[in-house]
C-alpha cells in the first residue's frame, strides 16, 4: 500500500537507452506541462491544499487543540463546518492545520530523499568500490516489509513529526538511491562523459555538470510519488500512534482519534480521510504529468 517500489522500484532497471540532457526551466517542457491536463488538475488541487495549510491561521481563528467540552460531538453546521469531536475541538481547524503538518512531513521526506538519495545513489553509481556495499545495505533495508521498518524506527525514536519524517525517509531513501544509481550507471558510460574524463575534467565537475543533470528527470518523477507515499505512510503511522505526537492534528491522528466514534460521529473520520485521498490523488496526477513530460520512456512501464 505504501510502498514506493510498487511504482518505481523496477522501472529504471529496464532503462537501457541514455536519458536526454534536460533542464527544468526549458520553456518547451514548461509549456508541455501547462498543456498536460492531468498535471494541471493535480497542480491546482495540490496548490489548494498547500495554500490552505500555509494560510491556516487566516482560514480559521480557532486553535485546533482548544477543548470545548460543552460543544462535543456537534455535527457539521454553519458554526462548525466540519463538526466537532469528543473534546469539542473544531474539526475544521484540525483538518486545516492538519494539511500544514501532513504536507510538512511529506516535504521533509522529500527533501531528505532528494539529498540522501542523490548522495548515496551517485556514490554507488559513480564509485565502483562503494557500489557493492551500498547496494547490499539498500537491499537489506528493502527486504523489510516497508511499514514494519517505519513502525520500528518510529517506535525507537518516539512519536513526533520529526520521527515520522525520519522513519518514512529511511524506508524510501534506498529506493531513491537505486533509481539515481541506475541513471548514473548509464550516464557514466556515455561518450561525452568519457570524453570529459579523457580531457582531464575532475570527477566532481563531471558529476555536477554531466551526471547529475541527467538523473534529474527520473529523480523528480520519483520524488513526486515519494511525496504521495509519505503523506499516506504518515497517516498509517499516526493511525498506529507512532506519527506526530497527539494531540497534533495530523490527518492520521484525527482519523485514529475519531474511529471510536465512527458510528455516532462519522464526520470525524470521514472528512480527513477524503481530504487525505484528494491530496494523494493530486500528487499522483502531478507525478503522472511530470513523468509524461519529463521522462516519457518511463511511461511504458508505469502506465
Amino acid at each position, binding site marked *: 500500500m*505504501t510502498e514506493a*517500489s510498487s511504482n518505481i522500484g523496477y522501472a529504471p532497471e529496464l532503462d537501457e537507452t541514455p536519458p536526454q540532457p534536460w533542464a527544468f526551466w526549458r520553456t518547451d517542457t514548461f509549456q508541455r506541462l501547462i498543456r498536460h491536463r492531468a498535471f494541471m488538475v493535480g497542480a491546482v488541487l495540490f496548490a489548494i491544499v498547500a495554500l490552505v495549510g500555509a494560510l491556516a491561521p487566516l482560514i480559521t481563528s480557532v486553535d485546533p487543540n482548544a477543548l470545548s467540552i460543552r460543544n462535543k460531538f456537534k455535527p457539521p453546521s454553519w458554526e462548525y463546518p466540519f463538526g466537532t469531536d469528543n473534546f469539542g475541538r473544531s474539526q475544521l481547524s484540525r483538518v486545516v492545520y492538519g494539511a500544514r503538518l501532513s504536507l510538512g512531513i511529506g516535504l521533509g521526506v522529500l527533501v531528505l530523499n532528494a539529498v540522501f538519495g542523490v548522495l548515496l545513489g551517485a556514490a554507488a553509481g559513480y564509485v565502483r568500490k562503494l557500489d557493492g556495499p551500498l547496494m547490499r545495505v539498500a537491499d537489506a533495508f528493502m527486504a*523489510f*516489509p*516497508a*511499514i*514494519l521498518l517505519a513502525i520500528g524506527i518510529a517506535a525507537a525514536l518516539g512519536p513526533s513529526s520529526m520521527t515520522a519524517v525520519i522513519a518514512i525517509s529511511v524506508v524510501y531513501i534506498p529506493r531513491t538511491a537505486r533509481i539515481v544509481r541506475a541513471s548514473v550507471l548509464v550516464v557514466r558510460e556515455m561518450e561525452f562523459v568519457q570524453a570529459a574524463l579523457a580531457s582531464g575534467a575532475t570527477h566532481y565537475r563531471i558529476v555536477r555538470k554531466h551526471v547529475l543533470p541527467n538523473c534529474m528527470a527520473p529523480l523528480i518523477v520519483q520524488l513526486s510519488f515519494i511525496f504521495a507515499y509519505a503523506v499516506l505512510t504518515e497517516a498509517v503511522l499516526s493511525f498506529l500512534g507512532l506519527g506526530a505526537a497527539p494531540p497534533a492534528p495530523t490527518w492520521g491522528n484525527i482519523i485514529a482519534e475519531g474511529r471510536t466514534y465512527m458510528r455516532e460521529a462519522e464526520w470525524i473520520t470521514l472528512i480527513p480521510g477524503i481530504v487525505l485521498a484528494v491530496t*494523494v*490523488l493530486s500528487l499522483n496526477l502531478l507525478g503522472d504529468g511530470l513523468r509524461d513530460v519529463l521522462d516519457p520512456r518511463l511511461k511504458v512501464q508505469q*502506465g
Partner: protein
Amino acid sequence: MGRYILQRLIQAVPILALVSLISFSIMQLVPGDAATLIGGPSATPAELQAIRENLGLDKPFHVQLLKFYAGALQGDLGRSLLLGKPVLEATIERLPVTISISIYAMILTLFFGILAGVIAALRQNTWVDQTVMTFALLGVSIPNFWLGLMMIVLFAVHLGWLPSGGYIPWQTDLWGWFRTTTLAAVSLAVLQMGLLARITRSTMLEVLRQDYIRTAKAKGLPKHLIVGKHAMANVMIPVVTIIGIILSVLISGSVVIEAIFSIPGVGSLLGNAILRRDYPMIQGGLLFVAGSLMLMNIVVDVLYVYLDPRVRYDRGK
C-alpha cells in the same frame, strides 16, 4: 539456470544478516518493554521488576543479543515473550491466514486490474477509458486503512452484510472464510488494482501498436483472438515482474489491515510484536518474513525467464 539460483541464494545470506542486525539495533533503541504489558496499568514498580526477572529482560542487551544469534545459528529463532511459544511456531501457524488473504487479494487485483486495463486500452480516449482510469487513480490514492474503516461502517454496521472483524479458517468453513476476509482483501487489493490497471493499459496500448498485431489485424483475425492470445501474452510480462512487489506490499499492508479487521495473521503478529516490545518475536519473525520474501522474488525472477524469452540470466553473468 541452476547456477543463477544458487548465486541468488548465496547473495541472500549477508542481506539477511544485515536485516537482523538492523532490526536488533532498532529494537535496542525502542523505549519500554513487554513487562509493562504483562503487568497492565495496575502493576506496581515492584511487580514490573518481578516480570522483567521472569523474562530475562533485566539482563544486558548484548547478552540477549548473543543468546538470540547462538540460537538462530542452530535454527532456533527463540521464544516469544508474550505468547509463550517458539517464534517459528507462532509465525508458521499464522501463515495460512495471511497467505490465504494475500492470494484472495492477489486474485482480485489480477482479475480486476488486468480487466480494467484491457478495457481501458481497447476503448482508449472514450468515456469508458476515462471512467476506468479515474477509478484506478482513486484506487492508488485512497488510504487503505481508512477505506477498511469506512467499509466496516457501511457493510458491517449499517447494512449488516458482513461481519466487522474476526477470522474463520477456510479449512473449517469456506463460506465463513469468505465472509470474514472479503472486506480485508478488498482493502488490500484496491491500491494494487489501480496500479495494475494503469500498467496493463499502457502495456496494452504499446502492444497494440506493434507490427505483428497490425499484421494479425490485416490478416483479418477476429479482435478477441488478437487481444486474447497475442496481446495478452505480452501484457503478462510486466505483470509477472511486479508480482513479487505486490506480495511485499500485501504483507506490508496486512500489518494495519489485519489489525483493523481483528485478523490473526503474520502482519498483525509482527506489527504487534513491535508495539508490544516482544523482542524475540520481532527478531525471528522479521528474519522469517524477509527471507520468505526474498525467496519469492527469486522464484518470480526465474518465472520471468520462462515468460520472456529475451531474458537469459545465465548468459553474460
